[in-house]
């Protein structure tokens, strides 16, 4: 009977300890860490066997009531899900000591388990952070407006972004590995990549120019190539990263700037050539008499003025275009501006016998604008009209309201602009085939008008013209309501 009771007590104790360990190990199992789980289960199994053996030996020597008491306490622990039995110092018998040993062991196991749990949690967090970082880096690469390609040492494309997809027309899914020769057909670009990979550490960084398409569709790219190295000495080429930056627009701007500088220099050389030639004639004594010498000097002075005007207009236009001159806008009466312009131009018109009429509205139409700039724009249009109208002609300035805009009409009975040149007369240095024969000009007056009215004041310039009959230049300026 006693033996049976002791065997039952051992089983009970083992169940108790097992339950304690189970409680401790359960969170670890759920963490899904297979290796740690197995090790702990094995450890726990071994500990259980040892505890069972020791327990069996000790329990055989312990009175029945004590065992029952301990068994009850273990059950309480299991019910409450707690680790560690309470043993008072008074319980100094074998069972008490055994209980203390079990408690210490359980505390040790609990500590180990907690440490493992923390490590697992940390690893999980690290994994999540890495995943998030990877997704973030991928998102950043995809968001880059430059094309990005990463080729590995096996000549497979391992990473490409949306911009690269747009440039090369890739059909494959993002994230898939594709042999570079299948993905890219352009031989020049493939050569760039393979040269880069083969050059290894000799040329680890390189910038090249690459063009795609032809004619109107041609796009120019600056390709920045970098070799990726691996290995302890970073001496093994593991791939090539190519970044393609679209420089088509930059090239267009550079070309436009170069054309502009070229045109300005060309235009400046004309008066300069005259100044130099007539000066040399004077120096060489080519003037037959003081009257001819004076004639040369008058031409030199005139050409100097022309050069100055050209420089001033070029600077004005370039400052306006680059936004260096800020518009000083205020509400102003257009009628008052027109009156001022008419006054300035009337001597020029009178000299050619041109009738200059300013049919100004009795009402003062107001616009919000920069007075000096608008004055310059209107002056350019009116003085052009006088310049290109033959003697005895007629120039009329009028103003009226049209659909929220104050309109300034400058009509002349001049030579007119051929229909195919109407758009071009607003280009810098463009001079109509007819205007060049008639009057001197810089070819910058109308571009300045367009810049001032359209870009700075949000208005519009329109031209109606009939060759041989005349033109109407119409400036639309947003009215102040």
């Amino acid at each position: 009977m006693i033996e049976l009771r002791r065997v039952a007590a051992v089983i009970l104790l083992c169940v108790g300890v097992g339950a304690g360990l189970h409680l401790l190990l359960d969170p670890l199992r759920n963490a899904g860490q297979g290796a740690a789980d197995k090790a702990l289960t094995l450890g726990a199994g071994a500990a259980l066997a040892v505890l069972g053996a020791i327990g069996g030996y000790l329990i055989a020597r312990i009175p029945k009531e004590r065992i029952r008491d301990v068994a009850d306490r273990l059950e309480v622990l299991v019910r409450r899900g707690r680790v560690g039995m309470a043993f008072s110092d008074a319980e100094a018998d074998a069972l008490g000591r055994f209980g203390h040993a079990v408690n210490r062991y359980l505390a040790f196991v609990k500590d180990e388990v907690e440490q493992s749990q923390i490590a697992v949690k940390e690893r999980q967090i690290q994994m999540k952070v890495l995943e998030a970082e990877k997704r973030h880096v991928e998102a950043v690469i995809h968001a880059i407006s430059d094309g990005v390609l990463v080729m590995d040492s096996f000549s497979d494309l391992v990473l490409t972004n949306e911009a690269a997809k747009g440039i090369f027309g890739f059909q494959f899914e993002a994230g898939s590995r594709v042999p570079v020769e299948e993905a890219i057909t352009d031989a020049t670009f493939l050569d760039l990549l393979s040269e880069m990979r083969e050059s290894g550490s000799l040329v680890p960084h390189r910038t090249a120019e690459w063009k795609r398409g032809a004619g109107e569709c041609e796009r120019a790219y600056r390709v920045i190539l970098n070799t990726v190295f691996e290995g302890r000495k970073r001496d093994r080429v593991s791939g090539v990263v190519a970044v393609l930056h679209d420089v088509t627009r930059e090239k267009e701007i550079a070309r436009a700037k170069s054309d502009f500088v070229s045109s300005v220099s060309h235009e400046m050389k004309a008066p300069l050539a005259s100044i130099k030639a007539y000066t040399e004639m004077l120096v060489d004594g080519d003037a037959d008499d003081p009257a001819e010498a004076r004639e040369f000097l008058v031409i030199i002075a005139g050409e100097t003025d022309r050069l100055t005007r050209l420089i001033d207009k070029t600077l004005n236009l370039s400052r306006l275009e680059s936004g260096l001159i800020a518009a000083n806008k205020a509400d102003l009466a257009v009628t008052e501006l027109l009156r001022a312009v008419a006054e300035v131009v009337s001597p020029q018109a009178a000299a050619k016998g041109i009738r200059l009429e300013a049919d100004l509205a009795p009402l003062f139409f107001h616009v919000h604008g920069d007075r000096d700039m608008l004055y310059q724009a209107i002056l350019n249009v009116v003085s052009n009209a006088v310049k290109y109208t033959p003697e005895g002609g007629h120039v009329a300035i009028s103003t009226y309201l049209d659909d929220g805009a104050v309109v300034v009409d400058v009509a002349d009975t001049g030579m007119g602009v051929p229909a195919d040149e109407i758009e071009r007369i607003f280009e810098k240095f463009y001079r109509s085939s007819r205007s060049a024969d008639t009057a001197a000009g810089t070819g910058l007056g109308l571009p300045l008008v367009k810049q001032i009215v359209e870009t700075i004041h949000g208005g519009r310039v329109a031209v109606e013209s009939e060759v041989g009959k005349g033109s109407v230049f119409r400036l639309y300026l947003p009215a102040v309501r």
Partner: protein
Amino acid sequence: MAARVLIADDEPCITDVVSRKLRKEGFEVIVAADGQEAYELAMAERPDFIITDLQMPRMSGLELCVRLAAELAEPVPILMLTAKGFELDPAEIARLPILAVMTKPFSPRELRDKVCQALQDLRAP
């Protein structure tokens, strides 16, 4: 008989100063204000020497040179007087029937010397 020189330029100051310089040297000078007029005058007047600008209304200096080379029975030495000197392609210039290129700003004295030299070379056997 005085040699006849045609000067074509859309800048009146240039044709004026060149005419004055050459007339003082005893040349007969014909003036054209654009390429088309220069072509017509060259065909009608058969000048001994032509000085032309490159960029002109109606017909460019290049087209003028090409057409005259093709249509004139006897070639006429042509001097291109242009502000775009360094922008011209030397290979293209070499292909054209042009004696010399002179860039603006220019020296009327040097221009006169070039014309005199060219006419002298032509007359020499």
